[in-house]
């Protein structure tokens, strides 16, 4: 019995690895923009009526949704989505006597499948 030797003719792995980092960063940047747009969309329902607990906050002054933005290239393989008001975190997770009105978590979850697809698309 003869066991053949597998000879690597075309090793594209180094090339793939080199291109992957830039591709992932591009996906992260695009995804951060998508998440920010979704967060703005779901915080754009006009007040009144007030939002119910567990729902994204209704828009009273537009201060919150005007503060939501993407920060591309925030670090190595990092892109951020920022809600820039000091009360954003209290809306997202609630206060002592205030039920949460999450808007960032639903935005991320809504876009998650698309982000995964984009990442999959980087692989040959």
């Amino acid at each position, binding site marked *: 019995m003869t066991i053949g030797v597998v000879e690597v003719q075309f090793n594209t792995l180094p090339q793939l690895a080199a291109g992957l980092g830039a591709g992932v960063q591009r996906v992260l940047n695009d995804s951060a923009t998508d998440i920010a747009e979704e967060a703005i969309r779901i915080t754009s329902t006009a007040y009144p009526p007030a939002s119910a*607990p*567990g729902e994204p906050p209704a828009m009273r002054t537009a201060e919150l949704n005007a503060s939501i933005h993407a920060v591309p290239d925030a670090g190595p393989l990092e892109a951020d989505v920022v809600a820039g008001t000091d009360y954003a*975190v*209290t809306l*997202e*997770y*609630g*206060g*002592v*006597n*205030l*039920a*949460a009105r*999450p808007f960032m*978590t*639903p935005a*991320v*979850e*809504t876009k998650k499948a698309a982000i995964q697809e984009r990442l999959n698309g980087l692989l040959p």
Partner: protein
Amino acid sequence: MSVAVNSLIPVEQWLATTLKGDATLAALAPGGVFVGQTPEGMATFPAVVFGSGSALPVGAVGNAPFMVNAVYFVKVIAKSDSYVAADNAFNRILFLLDQKSGTATAGTVYSVQQEGQYIRYPETGAGGIQFRHSGGNFRIYAH
């Protein structure tokens, strides 16, 4: 896409039973365990609060969902200008919830996994009273 509210009942039952049933957590957070928010005028802290951040149905296209994929925040609120008490109680919550599963009368919790960053923020209440929130997000699959 949204899920029926009753899809979340097993999740909330399991979280409440697990958190309320632990004597160590009860000592660290004697204020109790609440869904959504603490009651108005509550005096005893730290207290535990949990709630849904997102819930999506899981199922094949065209078929009824067979599972819910939810993200819940679970946090401790301490009446303090320090995070120590809230952090200590949340460490116990991590021990009780992370990588766990279980059953509730309304269904089954298949998996619970802490994900993302820790949640920590201050709050100034009426009269300048200081509160500290410490917690995290948990991905929960349940039916």
